[in-house]
């Protein structure tokens, strides 16, 4: 992430009433926040709505943000908690194989894109079968920008418990993905 102005400097500007500084922060982290929401919710419309609300909540709570932690851990935590509670409250329709097929038709332009979309499709279907807490831990882990301590701060789980949780989640994901891929191969034969 190429950051020309430091997050904390932008936050200081937002506190003086400069909304354009907050726009920069949103633009900087929108993909990350949206990804967390989408992975947990498995549905693009809900993910968009929850991601928006997470940013609005963060803006309103900016006075409480101490600046000791990174802005990313804070906004990710808000996004994660919002997405998990949204999924618990509502029965969200997860994207099905059919949704992906429609999505594929519009987007495939070459073989690389096709392979990438296939991967995305199988990955999200596997994630849809998992617990939201495990999905969020995996999503944060694969961002590859947070240390275990920062992930622990974001999730509110101790580092040792987090390591166990992450290991189990990765194992579960490998199993689910394997099942899906086997099924897909069998359907082609």
């Amino acid at each position, binding site marked *: 992430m190429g950051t020309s102005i430091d997050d904390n400097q932008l936050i200081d500007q937002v506190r003086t009433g400069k909304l354009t500084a907050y726009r920069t922060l*949103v633009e900087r982290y929108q993909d990350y926040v949206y990804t967390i929401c989408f992975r947990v919710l498995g549905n693009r419309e809900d993910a968009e709505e929850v991601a928006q609300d997470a*940013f609005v909540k963060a803006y309103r709570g900016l006075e409480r943000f101490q600046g000791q932690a990174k802005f990313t851990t804070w906004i990710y935590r808000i996004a994660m908690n919002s997405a998990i509670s949204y999924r618990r409250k509502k029965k969200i329709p997860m994207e099905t194989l059919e949704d992906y097929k429609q999505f594929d038709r519009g987007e495939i332009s070459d073989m690389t894109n096709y392979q990438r979309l296939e991967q995305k499709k199988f990955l999200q279907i596997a994630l849809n079968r998992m617990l939201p807490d495990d999905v969020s831990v995996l999503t944060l882990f*694969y961002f*590859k920008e947070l240390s275990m301590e920062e992930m622990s701060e974001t999730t509110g789980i101790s580092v040792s418990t987090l390591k166990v949780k992450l290991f189990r989640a*990765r194992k579960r*994901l490998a199993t689910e993905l394997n099942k899906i891929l086997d099924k897909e191969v069998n359907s082609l034969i």
Partner: protein
Amino acid sequence: MSNYGEQEIFHYLDQEMTPEQTKAFELALKNDPELKSALEAAQKSHQYFNQNNLEKAPEVLTDQVIQKITASSNKKYYRHYGLFSSTTFLLISGVLTALVAFLSLISSDYIDWSAVSPGIPEGSMSYTDNLFRGFVSRKVINSSMLVIYGILALVLLDRFVLNPLFRGKMKQLGYH
């Protein structure tokens, strides 16, 4: 599955093994088909997630966030100043209504002026002694007009003082 478990498989994938451990693990892989297939399964999910770790957010997301923030700020303003205007209006109209009611009571001769005019015999109180007599209808009209002017003043205050003030503040805060 040799001496290696799933924990070691993930350590291998995350490149958390020392060169010696990696060498030994890769050697075990050649002789252990079960370990190999477990690694392949873990490798696949690892690769899929690594290559698709970030989704592209909709392009309108930032604009929508800013719109929501601006809208909520507007609501706050209207709540605050709306409350102020309503209270002021109620106070002023209350006072004016009381005044109109009081003047109406005087005009209807409900007030016994002899009670508040000690020393003057009851019989000597005539209509002409009552200073309010004769002006009543005009006073009632004047008071009613005062209420209307009050409302008008409040509207003008909101339109020409509060609103421009609010717009200036919004610009200062960088709102669009």
